[in-house]
C-alpha cells in the first residue's frame, strides 16, 4: 500500500492542495488513499518505471526534435492510395475550433447541432460525390470501411463468399483477410488482366453463392475502368457490387453510382486531411436507401422540434451496438467525425468547380509525367489502360533500388509494386498531385534516366 501526499498541483489538475483537503474533509476522509479503499491493497503498487513530468517548453522541444528527425522537403511521387494534396488554410482554421474538436458524439442533439448539421452536410456531400442515395457519418479508414461493406453484403444477401479484384489496394485485402480469420467467409482473389479487372475470370467464379464482387476504381495501379458490366453481371447472379474509390478523383471520374454500385467505400484522406503517417484518416460509405438499415456506423437525419424548427439527430440507432449489443450491424462506436468535418470544409471550399479543376490538374500532371517517363530508354508502361493521377512503369532495374537512389536526390520517386505483388520487382508506381510542378516532373525524369544508365 502506498501513501500519496498531495502537496503539489500537478499538470492540468484544477484544484489546489487546499481545495483537495477541504473536499476530502467534506467526505470525512483523512487522505486520498482512503478513496481507493475498495481496491485490495495487493492490487495497488507504486512500482512504475516512468519518467518525471516535463514542462510544456521541455515537451515541445522534445517533440520538435522527433519531428525534425523525419524526412522533410522530399518531392513526393509516392501514392499507393494516400496522396499529397494541397490543403487550404481555412480547413485547419475551422476544424481547429475547439467547439468542434472538444465536443463528443452528439447524444444530446440540442447542444450538438453544430456537429450534427455538419455530419448531415457531409453525408450529403458524399452522396453527391459518389452519386449514391445515403451515406453514413464516417468509418475509421478506407480499409475498415471495405470490411464493413463486405459484412453488410453478407447481411443483405445471406451468402458467404466474395470475389475481390487484385486491383483493390493490397493493404486493404490484407486487412480483409485479417478480419475474416474468425468468421466463416470465403474470399476469392481474382488476378488482373493487363492492369484491369478480368471480366471472364470473375464471370467464371460468379456462382449463386457469391455475396459481392469488390473492385476499386482507379485501382492500385492507377488504372481507370468502367465497371458497369461487371456490376450488372453481379446483379444477375444476386450478388452486390462494392466499389472502393479515391474521392478526389470523383471530381472528374465516372461515379460508382453511375456504374450501378450497391455499396461504395473509400479513403477520404485526399479531401483535406494531411498524410500524417497513416492517420487519422477517414473511412466513408455510401449506399442505396434500401440498404440504410443494414449500414454500420452513425447516421444523422433531419427532423424538427415541436415548434417546427429544423434540427438534426442521430437516427436508426437500433442498428447500433449500444442498443443491439452482439446483434448490432457493427461494433463501431466512435469513428472519425472531425476528419469528416475536414472533408466537408474542404469540399465546400473547393466547390462544384474547384474540385473538377484540382482533379483535372492531377490528371494533367500525370499525363505529362507519363510522356516524360515513358520516353526514357528502357522504361515502359506496365499496362495500357487509362489512368487518373497514378500509373505503373516497368523499369529495366529493381524498382526499390531505383527509389532508394533517387531519395538521395531529394525525390520520393514512387512506390515499388513488388512489395505487394510477386513478380513485379521492376514495377514502379508513380503518383502526381496538383502540388507537383513541371519542373519537379522534369527533375524526376532526369534523375530516373540518370539512375538507369
Amino acid at each position, binding site marked *: 500500500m502506498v501513501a500519496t501526499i498531495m502537496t503539489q498541483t*500537478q499538470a492540468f489538475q484544477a484544484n489546489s492542495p487546499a*481545495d*483537495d483537503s477541504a*473536499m476530502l474533509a467534506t467526505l470525512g476522509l483523512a487522505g486520498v488513499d482512503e478513496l481507493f479503499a*475498495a*481496491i485490495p491493497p495487493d*492490487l495497488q*503498487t507504486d512500482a512504475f518505471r*516512468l519518467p*518525471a513530468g516535463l514542462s*510544456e517548453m521541455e515537451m515541445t522541444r522534445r*517533440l520538435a526534435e522527433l*519531428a525534425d528527425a523525419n524526412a*522533410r522537403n*522530399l518531392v513526393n511521387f509516392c501514392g499507393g*492510395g494516400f496522396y499529397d494534396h494541397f490543403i*487550404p488554410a481555412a480547413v485547419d482554421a475551422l476544424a481547429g*475550433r475547439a467547439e468542434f474538436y*472538444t465536443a463528443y458524439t*452528439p447524444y444530446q442533439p*440540442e447542444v*450538438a447541432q*453544430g456537429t450534427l448539421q455538419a455530419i448531415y452536410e457531409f453525408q450529403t456531400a458524399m452522396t*453527391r460525390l459518389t452519386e449514391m442515395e445515403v451515406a453514413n457519418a464516417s468509418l475509421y479508414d478506407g480499409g*475498415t470501411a471495405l470490411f464493413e461493406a463486405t459484412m453488410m453484403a453478407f447481411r443483405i444477401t445471406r451468402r458467404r463468399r466474395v470475389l475481390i479484384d487484385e486491383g483493390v489496394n493490397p493493404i486493404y485485402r490484407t*486487412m480483409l483477410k485479417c478480419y475474416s*480469420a474468425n468468421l466463416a467467409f470465403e474470399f476469392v482473389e481474382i488476378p488482373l488482366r493487363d492492369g484491369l479487372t478480368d471480366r471472364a475470370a470473375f464471370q467464371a467464379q460468379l456462382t449463386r453463392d457469391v455475396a459481392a464482387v469488390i473492385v476499386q476504381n482507379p485501382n492500385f495501379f492507377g488504372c481507370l475502368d468502367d465497371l458497369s458490366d461487371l456490376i450488372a453481371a453481379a446483379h444477375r447472379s444476386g450478388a452486390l457490387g462494392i466499389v472502393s474509390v479515391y474521392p478526389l478523383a470523383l471530381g472528374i*471520374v*465516372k461515379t460508382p453510382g453511375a456504374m450501378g454500385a450497391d455499396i461504395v467505400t473509400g479513403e477520404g484522406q485526399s479531401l483535406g486531411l*494531411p*498524410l500524417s503517417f*497513416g*492517420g487519422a484518416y477517414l473511412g466513408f460509405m455510401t449506399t442505396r*436507401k434500401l440498404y440504410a438499415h443494414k449500414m454500420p456506423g452513425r*447516421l444523422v*437525419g433531419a*427532423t424538427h*422540434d415541436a415548434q417546427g424548427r429544423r434540427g438534426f439527430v442521430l437516427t*436508426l440507432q437500433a442498428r447500433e*451496438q*449500444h442498443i*443491439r*449489443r452482439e446483434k448490432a450491424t457493427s461494433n463501431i462506436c*466512435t469513428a472519425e*467525425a*472531425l*476528419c469528416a468535418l475536414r472533408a466537408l470544409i474542404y*469540399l*465546400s471550399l*473547393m466547390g*462544384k468547380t*474547384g474540385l473538377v479543376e484540382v482533379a483535372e490538374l492531377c490528371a*494533367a500532371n500525370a*499525363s505529362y509525367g507519363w510522356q516524360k517517363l515513358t520516353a526514357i530508354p528502357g522504361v515502359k508502361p506496365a499496362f495500357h489502360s487509362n489512368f*487518373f493521377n497514378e500509373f505503373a512503369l516497368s523499369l529495366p532495374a529493381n524498382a526499390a533500388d531505383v*527509389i*532508394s537512389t533517387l531519395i538521395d536526390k531529394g525525390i*520520393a520517386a514512387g512506390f515499388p509494386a513488388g512489395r505487394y505483388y510477386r513478380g513485379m520487382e521492376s514495377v514502379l508506381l508513380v503518383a502526381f498531385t*496538383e502540388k507537383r510542378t513541371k*519542373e519537379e516532373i522534369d527533375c524526376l525524369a532526369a534523375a530516373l534516366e540518370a539512375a538507369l544508365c
Partner: protein
Amino acid sequence: MKLIYEKSVAGRRAVRAPRRTVPGRELIQKRLLRARPAELPEVPEIEVVRHFTNLSRLNFSVDTQFYPLGSCTMKYNPKACEVVAQHPGFVGIHPLWPQLRGGGQLTQGALRLLYETERLLAELAGMAEFTLQPLAGAHGELTGAMLIAAYHRDRGNTKKHILIPDSAHGTNPASAALAGFQVVAAPSTAQGTVDVEKLKGFINAETAGMMMTNPNTLGLFEPDVRRIADLIHAVDGLMYYDGANFNAIMGRCKPAEMGFDVCHLNPHKSFASPHGGGGPGAGPVGVVERLRPFLPISRVVKTRDGTFSLDYDYPKSIGYVAPFYGNFGVLVRTYAYLLLLGREGLRAVSDHAVLNANYVLSKLKDIFPAVSDHCMHECVLSAKSLVAGGVRAMDIAKGLIDRGFHPPTVYFPLIVPEAMMIEPTETETRETLDAFIQAMRELAQTARANPAALHAAPVTTTVGRLDEVAAARNMDLAFKEKKSE
C-alpha cells in the same frame, strides 16, 4: 441555420486552383469520366468561414462548458498537445515512406515516438508489449478479441464463448461477436459488481475468456477480479481489460497485476486527446508475454545501433487491423501528454478524478439514490424517485442544458433504472462542481413543483427536443434541393 447547400449561388467560389504548369491535357477517355460535376456548394470563402464558425457555436464542448458525460471522460485537452501534433515533420510524412528505404530511415522520429509510446503504455498497464494500430476503443476491443481467438487456435483449443458482465458497454459484446465468439452475459450482484458465484456456473471448457472493465461502468472497482481471473485461467481462458475506465487507477494499479492478459486503453479518455465530436480516437492494445507472437504487424523495433525499424516477420501475427501504424496524429498527442504528466502527474490524474466524482456523489446522493456510497472516477445516480411525478432522467438532462451544463450520460448502465452517469474528471474546479451540484438540486425541486417546466426544456437552445421518431420514419439522410417551379 441554413445548410451550406442552401447558401450556394451558381458561379461563386472560394478556392482558386493552382496554375497549370505542364503542357497538354489529361488523356482520359470520355466514357471513363463523370457525366456532370458533383453538386457541391458554390460559396465564397467568407461564407464557408462564417458557416462553420457559426455551426461550431451551436455545440457545447469542453472548452465552453462543464461536460460530465459519464464513461466518456470529457476532460480538458491541453493545447500544447494540439500544437505539437501539427508539426510539419509529423503531418507531412507519407505512411509508405518507411518502405522506400530499408528500416524506415526516412521516418526515424516518428518510429521512435511510436516505440517510446508503446514502452510507456506497457509500463503503465504492466503489459509486456503494446500495439498502437487499433483506431478507436471499440477497434481495440475487436483486436483484443481477435488476439484471444488466435491464441486458442494456436493452442488447438475449441472455444466458443466470451463472458461479459451485463453492465458492460455495448461495444464489448459487439466486438466479441465480430471475432467469432458467442457472448454470454455474466450477471451482477445487487451491489453492481460481478456475481462470482453465479459466474462459476457459466465457466466451462468452451470459455475463451472474459471481458471486464475495472472499475466497471457503475464506477465501482471489481474487488474479486483476481479470483475471477484465476477461474478463467483454470480453463485456459484469457482475461480482457476494457480500458475505458483506466483513468480511475492510472499510476496506482496495473491491469496485468489484476490478472488481465490483453487490454486496450483509450487515449481520448485517459490521456486527454480530444474527442473530435465523435473521433478520431485510438485504441492501443497491450498483451502479456505469451500473446506477443499474435500482435498485428508491422511492429516497431529498436535495432542494435539504436535506430528504429519496422518488422513484419511475425508468422503467428493476426495481420493488419489498420493500414499502417494507427491514428498517428492522436498518438503524438498521447505521447506529448504522457511526457507532460510523468509518473506523479498520471497518478494525480486518477486521484483527482476519483476525488471529484466522490465529492459530487456525496452532495447529491440524498436526493438522487446512488448505486453505492463511494465510487471511483464516476458515479451513477438514479432519477427513479421522480418518475411517479412524471419526470425522467432525460428531463433532468434537458434541464441541465438550460442551466449551461452538458448533461451526464443517461439510461446507461442498462441495469440501473433512470440512470444518470456523472464523470466530472480531474480538470474541473471545486466551484464548477458546486455550481453543477446546485443545478441538480434545483432541478430535483423543479421536478416536484413544476414538472411541466422540465418537460419543455431545453428552451435556451436554437432547437428544442427533436422528433426522433419522425427522423427514423422519414429517413432524410441527405439534402435534396426543392425543384423550383
